[in-house]
C-alpha cells in the first residue's frame, strides 16, 4: 500500500476526467501534478462546453416559458436582452466553478501547473508554462486527459468570425438575424435553441435522415416537433456543399440528397459536426502509446495504454465523449495505478441532450436491440397521462423501459420531456443494480412528480398501470 501511495503522478489535462483523477490520486496519498493551459482546472466542460451552454439554456428556457405564459393568462412584454449582462452571468458561472476547482486542488496539495506538456519519454514531460518558462519533470505514472476539440470540415473553413464552432457560439458576440447550424447532433441543437430563444432565425442542416443520430426515433420525435416551431427550418438528408464569405454574410449552398440544392445567406454559421480527440501530443511518439485510426489513444480496461507507465482517459480514448464518462474513467485509472483490481465496466452510461424538451437515455436502446436482433419488451408511458406533466403544460414527453422478457430485468431507459436529464439517473441505478421491472414498479415514487412515469412504465409492462389502460400483450 505505502508503495503505491508514494507514487509521483502527472495528469495532463484539467477537464472533468483529469481533475477527478488528480483529486482522487491526491486523496490516495500520491504526489500529483496537474497540467493544463487554463488558469484553473475545468477543461472544455467548464470553460467552453457543458457549463456555459447550460447557463444559456436556462435563460433560453425562461424566454420560452415567458412566451408560453400567454396561454396561462400571464402576458409579458417582449423581452429586452442585455447581451453584456447575459455574457457576464455565463462568465461568472464559469469563474465560480473553475475557481472552486482551483481551491479544491490547493486544499488537496495538487501541484497545478498552467502550461502545455510534451513527452520526452515514457516518464518525463517537458512543460512549457504559460509564462514562457520551461520545465522537465519526471513521474512514475502519467495520465493523459487531453480531451477533444470541435471537428473541422475542410469545405467549411472560412477565416471570418461569422464562421463559428461551439466555442465561438458560446462567446455570444451578438444575436445574429440568421444562423445556419451544420450538424443536428446535441451540440448543434442545444446552441441552436439558445440562439433561437434570443431571437435568431435558425436553420439546422443534418446529413442523416433524423436529428440526434443514434438516439431512438420515438424519443427524438417530440423534440423535433417543438424545434420545428422554434427554428426557421430543419433540413434533413442535407449537406452543406460550400460556403462563401460575402462580407455581410456567408452564402451557403445546401444540397439535399434528392439532388435539389439551394443557396442562402446567413449572418453566422455554426459548425457542430462532432469532436476530435486531442491525441496529437508532442513527443507521444517517444513513448509506446498507440493511437488508433480515428485518433483515439488505445487503452485496456484499466485505462492503461500500451506504455505501462502511461494511462489515458476521457474523450481522448473514445466515445462517448462525455464528462461523466471521463470522470469515472479517471477514478478507475487512478485506482488501477494504486494497485487496486479495478476495471472500467459500466453497464450504463447516461446520455442527456439539454434541449427543451430534454432527451435522455441509458443502457440498451431500441435501435441497438434491433441491430443485435435482441428480443426486448418496450414499456412506454406517455406523459399525457402524467398529472405533473399536465400541470406544467408539457404533455409531449414519454418514458420508456426496455425489459428482458425472460428475466424481466430493466436493460435500458429512455426519456424525453422536461427534466429528463435529472430523471435518467434512476434508470442508471436500476440498470447497474440489475433491477427487475417489478422492483421499479414496487418502489413508491413521489406524487405528483415526473418520476412517477418511470414507475408507471414498469407497471405498463405488467399491464397494470394506474393511469393508462393498456392490457398486457401476449
Amino acid at each position, binding site marked *: *500500500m505505502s*508503495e503505491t501511495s508514494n507514487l509521483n503522478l502527472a495528469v495532463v489535462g484539467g477537464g472533468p476526467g483529469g481533475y477527478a483523477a488528480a483529486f482522487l490520486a491526491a486523496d490516495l496519498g500520491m504526489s500529483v501534478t496537474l497540467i493544463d493551459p487554463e488558469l484553473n482546472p475545468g477543461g472544455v466542460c467548464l470553460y467552453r462546453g457543458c457549463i456555459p451552454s447550460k447557463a444559456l439554456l436556462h435563460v433560453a428556457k425562461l424566454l420560452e416559458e415567458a412566451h408560453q405564459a400567454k396561454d396561462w393568462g400571464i402576458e409579458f412584454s417582449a423581452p429586452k436582452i442585455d447581451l453584456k449582462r447575459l455574457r457576464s452571468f455565463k462568465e461568472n458561472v464559469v469563474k465560480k466553478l473553475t475557481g472552486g476547482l482551483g481551491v479544491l486542488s490547493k486544499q488537496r496539495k495538487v501541484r497545478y501547473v498552467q502550461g502545455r506538456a510534451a513527452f520526452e519519454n515514457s516518464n518525463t514531460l517537458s512543460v512549457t508554462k504559460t509564462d514562457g518558462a520551461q520545465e522537465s519533470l519526471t513521474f512514475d505514472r502519467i495520465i493523459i486527459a487531453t480531451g477533444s476539440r470541435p*471537428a473541422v*470540415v475542410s469545405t467549411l473553413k472560412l477565416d471570418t468570425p461569422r464562421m463559428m464552432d461551439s466555442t465561438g457560439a458560446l462567446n455570444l458576440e451578438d444575436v445574429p438575424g440568421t444562423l445556419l447550424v451544420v*450538424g443536428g*447532433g*446535441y*451540440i*448543434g441543437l442545444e446552441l441552436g435553441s439558445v440562439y433561437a430563444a434570443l431571437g435568431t432565425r435558425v436553420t439546422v442542416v443534418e*446529413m*442523416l435522415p433524423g436529428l*440526434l*443520430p*443514434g438516439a431512438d426515433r420515438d424519443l427524438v420525435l417530440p423534440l423535433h416537433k417543438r424545434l420545428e416551431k422554434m427554428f426557421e427550418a430543419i433540413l434533413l438528408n442535407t*449537406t452543406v456543399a460550400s460556403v462563401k464569405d460575402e462580407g455581410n454574410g456567408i452564402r451557403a449552398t445546401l444540397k439535399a440528397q434528392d439532388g435539389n440544392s439551394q443557396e442562402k445567406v446567413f449572418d453566422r454559421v455554426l459548425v*457542430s*459536426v*462532432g469532436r476530435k480527440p486531442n491525441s496529437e501530443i508532442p513527443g507521444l511518439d517517444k513513448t509506446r502509446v498507440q493511437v*488508433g*485510426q*480515428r485518433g*483515439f489513444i*488505445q*487503452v*485496456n*480496461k484499466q*485505462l492503461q495504454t*500500451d506504455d505501462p507507465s502511461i494511462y489515458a482517459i476521457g474523450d481522448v*480514448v*473514445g*466515445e*462517448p465523449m462525455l464528462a461523466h*464518462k471521463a470522470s469515472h474513467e479517471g477514478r478507475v485509472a487512478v485506482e488501477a495505478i494504486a494497485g487496486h*483490481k*479495478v476495471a*472500467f*465496466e*459500466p*453497464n*450504463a*452510461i*447516461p446520455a442527456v441532450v439539454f434541449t427543451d424538451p430534454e432527451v435522455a*437515455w*441509458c*443502457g*440498451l436502446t431500441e*435501435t*441497438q436491440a434491433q441491430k443485435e436482433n435482441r428480443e426486448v419488451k418496450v414499456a412506454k408511458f406517455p406523459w399525457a397521462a402524467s398529472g405533473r406533466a399536465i400541470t406544467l403544460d408539457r404533455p409531449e414527453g414519454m418514458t420508456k423501459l426496455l425489459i*428482458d422478457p*425472460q*428475466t*424481466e*430485468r430493466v*436493460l*435500458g431507459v429512455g426519456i424525453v420531456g422536461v427534466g429528463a436529464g435529472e430523471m435518467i439517473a434512476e434508470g442508471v441505478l436500476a440498470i*447497474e443494480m*440489475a433491477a*427487475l421491472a*417489478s*422492483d421499479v414498479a414496487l418502489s413508491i415514487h413521489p406524487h405528483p412528480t415526473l418520476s412517477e412515469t418511470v414507475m408507471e412504465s414498469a407497471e405498463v409492462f405488467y399491464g397494470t398501470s394506474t393511469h393508462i389502460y393498456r392490457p398486457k400483450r401476449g
Partner: protein
Amino acid sequence: MIEFKLPELGENIEQGDLVRLMVEPGAAVSAGQSVMELETDKAVVEVPSSVSGTVQEICVKEGDKIKVGQVIFTVDGAEAKGSGVPSQAAAPAPAPAPREKPAAPASKEVAAATSQAAASSAPSSTPGASEFKLPELGENISQGDLVRLMIAPGARVSEGQPIMELETDKAVVEVPSSVSGVVKELKVKEGEKIKVGQVIFTLEGGAAAAQPARPRSAPVEHVSGQHGARLAFQAAIRAEGKTEEQALPPDQPQQTVPSFSMPAQLGKVAGTEHRQPVPAAPHVRRLAREVGVDIYDVKGTGPGGRISEDAVKAHAKALLSAAATAAATPRAGHFAQPQLPDFAKWGKIERVSMRGVRRKTAEHLAEAWNTIPHVTQHDRADITELEQLRARFAPKAEEAGGKMTVTAIALKVCAAALKVFPQFNASIDIEKEEIVYKQYINIGVAADTDRGLLVPVIRDVEKKNIVELAVELSQLSKKAREKKLSPADMEGGTFTITNLGGIGGVGFTPIVNFPEVAILGLSRSRMEPEWLNGKFEPRLILPLSLSYDHRLIDGADAARFLRWISEAFEQPFLLSVQG
C-alpha cells in the same frame, strides 16, 4: 449463524499455518478486529475478522494448515449463509450446462463419468450433497493411497476444507471437501488405495443409498464445465493481460464527412468487451475482480439471475479448491525423487512437516537450479581504505538509526554497477524470446532468520545514499526478525546480495534468485599480505562470489562486472565518477 472464512490474503497465497488464535467461543468480535496470526509462505500476517457477533464455534486450531475460504469460526447473528451449494430448485431458469459451476453434484458426476464409466452408483442431483467421492486429481491420476484422514464421524466439514492426504504416483496431495455438513460414516481407511470416484464419506441426513439411478444427461458437458471453470480461473488470474487488449473492438474506418452520432448503447464503449451487461451490482462486479473471478462465470440465483456478493464468494471458493487440487500435481515435479529408504531401520528418527518458509525455499531454489545454468565468478576487493571510511561515517548512520555495514555499502556499489551493466538487472522471458531490462534497481538482501531464509527487497537503491540504505536495511532486518515482513516487502527484486561474512568462510557459490539473473555473495574479509610497491603489506581483503545466469551473461562480462564492483570497493571515489 454467520461463518467467518479465511479471506484472500494476496496473490498466489492459498493457505497458511495458524500460528495463534486470538478469539475463543463466547468472545465478542467485531469486523476489522484481528482474530488470528497466520504464517504464509512469505510472512506472518494478522487476519482481521469481516464479521461481527459472538463467537460460537471455532472450527480450526493452532498449528492447522488453513486454506483461503475455509471456515474459521461461526458467530451468532442472522441466519446461516447457505452451504455454498446453491439450491437449484429455486433457480428460475433451466440452467444451461456450460455455465454451471463445479458444485458438488457436478463434480461427482465428473468423477463418475470419466474414470469410472461403469460405476454403478449414479449420482443424485439433489441440491444437498449426501456423500463425497474422490474427485479428479489431475491428468492420468486415477488412484492414490490414503495417507491420513483428517475427519471422523460426527465432525463438521465445509466445502474447501482439506479432509485427507492422498499419496499419488507423484505427490502427497491434500484433498479438499466439495460438500458441507456433518460426517456420518467414513467409507475408507488409512492405508487403502482409493480410486477416483470412490465414496469417501457420507453426510448426516443424506439419503445416499436410496437414490434410484437417474439417466445421466450429457455428462460430457459437465466435464467441460469443470475444465471450463479451471480455465476461467486461470484466465481470471491473468485477467489484466493481453487477451483483453485484443478484445478491443477495431477502429471503424473514418467516414468521408464527419457526422456526429452518440454511440447507440452507452454501456459499450471503446476498451470494453462486447458482452451483455451482467446482472450484478457495481460493487459485486468489483468484488469479483478483486478475488479474481470472472463475473460472467458466476451463476446468479437472485431474481432475474442477479448475482449476489455471496454467490461471487462461493464461486471463488469452489474455484480455489478445484485449483488447489489441480495445482498439487504439477508441483510434485520438484519433489520427485527416488523412494527413500526406511531410515528408522537404523535408529530413531523424527519427522517434522516441511512447512512455510522452508517448503517455499525448497521449491524456489529447486526451480532456480533447474532453470538457470549457473556459473560463479570469484574476485577479491581490497577494502582497507573503505574500512577507514566506513568507521568514520558509521556514527552518521547510527545517528540516523542505521548501521553502516559492508552490506549497506555493497548495495550502493551494486546499484552503480547495475547501471553500467544493465544486463545484470534483467530477466529472461523465454516464452516471448525477449530480455526484460528493468529500469529500476531493487536489490534483495538475503536475511538469515530463525524461520529460514528471507529476502526483503530495498527499492530504488540507485536513488538513495548509503546512510539511507543503511537505515532502510536495519529496518528491514528488524522487520524480518520480528516476522513482520509482508509479501510486498519481498517482491520486485532485480538483483540479490547475500553476505555470509558474519559467519565466516572464504567463498561460496550462491544460487541466483530466479527470475533475477545474478547474485553477489560476500564472505568474511580478513587481513592478508598483498604485494604492493615492492613489499608485502597487510591489507583487508573482501572475497566476492558472483553467480550468474549463463544464458544471458557471458563469462567475460561477468568478470568485468565483478572487477568493476571490486574496484568500486577499492576506490569508493569511482562511485561518484561512474556510478
